[in-house]
């Protein structure tokens, strides 16, 4: 029998049973109830500002040297101001693209990993900016937790 994974909507959180007391067979409340807290919610940890946070998938393995892999789940917060060292989603040639922002000699540049691309100057209010990537999430090898990504296209 196969199960279909169900995607939880981004804004919903799992129901907590904080109001109900656990009763033993004798009917007395469990002494642990006083210490109970809501379970840790990874979504709240990763998504500080739901209105400005978007998810994308990384396409291509050119940033592998930096620990960003094809198929990674990218968490992007548009409310963050870009700073040197940040990984950005920028629009280049009409495509959502991932590059690193670097400072060289007091100027900002987009630094590609692909050898066929040149570094590009970046302005403080650059209109190519889409958002700042704050997390890249991938399963570690052979744990089978992450649904298989389609094979890398390049």
């Amino acid at each position, binding site marked *: 029998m196969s199960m279909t994974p*169900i*995607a*939880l*909507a*981004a804004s*919903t959180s799992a129901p907590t049973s904080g109001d109900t007391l656990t009763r033993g067979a004798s009917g007395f409340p469990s002494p642990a109830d006083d210490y109970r807290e809501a379970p840790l919610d990874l979504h709240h940890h990763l998504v500080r*500002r*739901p*209105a*400005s946070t*978007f*998810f*994308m*998938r*990384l*396409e*291509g*393995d*050119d*940033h592998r040297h930096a620990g*960003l892999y*094809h198929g990674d*789940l*990218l968490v992007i917060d*548009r*409310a963050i101001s870009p700073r040197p060292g940040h990984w950005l*989603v920028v*629009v*280049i040639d*009409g*495509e*959502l*693209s*991932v*590059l690193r922002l670097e400072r060289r000699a007091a100027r900002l540049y987009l630094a*590609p*990993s*692909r050898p066929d*691309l040149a570094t590009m100057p970046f302005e403080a209010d650059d209109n190519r900016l*889409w*958002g700042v990537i704050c997390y890249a999430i991938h399963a570690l090898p052979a744990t089978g937790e992450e649904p298989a990504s389609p094979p890398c296209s390049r």
Partner: protein
Amino acid sequence: MFALIDCNNFYAACERLFEPRLEGVPVGVLSNNDGCVIARSEEFKALDIPMGIPTHKIDPTLRRRVVLKSSNYTLYGDLSARVQQVLARQVPTLEPYSIDECFLDLRGMQEDWHALGAHLVRSVVREVGLPVSIGIAPTRTLAKLANRQAKAQSTRPQVCVWQSADAPELTAHLKRLSPRDVWGIGERLNARLAGLGVLTAAALRETPDSELRRRFSVVLARTASELNGHPCLSMSDLESPRRSILCSRSFGRPLRDRAALAGALRHHCQRAGEKLRRDAMQASAIGIYLRTNPHHNTPYHHACEWTALPFPSADTQQLNRAAQRLLTRLWQPLAYQKLGVMLTELTPRQQRQTTLFDGAEPARQEALMEAWDTIRARYGRQALTLGPQPADAAWQMNSAYRSACYTTRWEELPRALAR
């Protein structure tokens, strides 16, 4: 002070956010079933392709120059909610008006209004990525007009502030404006006003209050008063509460099979029930209608029938039982093109009458519907349906050019290229 904030060419802007190659390209968004154009980007408007034009009537040479998108309300709804979240954080009261507009009640704030407007516009652009414009004025009616002025500006951010109702630039503007352009004034009212010599919005606001009340209505007198800078209209004055609900759709291709029609009907009953419960309403009567394609050479058949519900209800199963009985009566072996469910005589939930014999069942049904809505909201509309509803059913929408649900489905996330 009040503000009206409005997303510019909202549907086209949503499409561009995740498909940046569409920037600068004429983009048109199509109605359900891809029937006609319901939203246009500026570039699309510049080609003189009118709003509402049937998709197949677009000139073939123009058709090649534009990009057409099926409407993707899942995406638009999510982005609309984000815009509201960003604004709600920064102002005391936000009142959504439509999917792409909301009013802000700024009373109690002491601000440099222009700076506040510019800040709000910039925060939406930055955080959600959609262009918006804002009008700020002493009343909602004036704010709506100020917003239109803001939209006409070529500079960014698009902000228009009228500090007071007697600001000279506002008076000059109202002198050029037809009453028809004022919020809540329709074609017929405008014609009656013209008959009395009231040809501009400026003339309307100078008409004595007593005369407007006597000849027209309290609401029009209030509109005039709003033009004079006195806030006296609430949102509910301008939106009559929902009187009826309609869920209908043309089929992707003609349907003959009765079981397939019953499936489509179940789908519409689910939608209608959800709309009812969302508005905390219940219906007293239900109707269905069926028709064949009027443009085909086959015999045209249109059938519609209503039935009263045993008691006012917002229960999907109750609605569906009544609707299926109607279908059994109306169905003939024809090629149907459209099926709809209508609910009417809506009353608020709390006035619910229970019949003498219904005992505990309605309370159980209410709990069931609550659980139903919760499950569908959390796990998606396909997770729980009334009877089987295959995703590829013939009556499902045609949406050949729909973009992905970029923000609500894991398997449809946008892809960003490593470079």
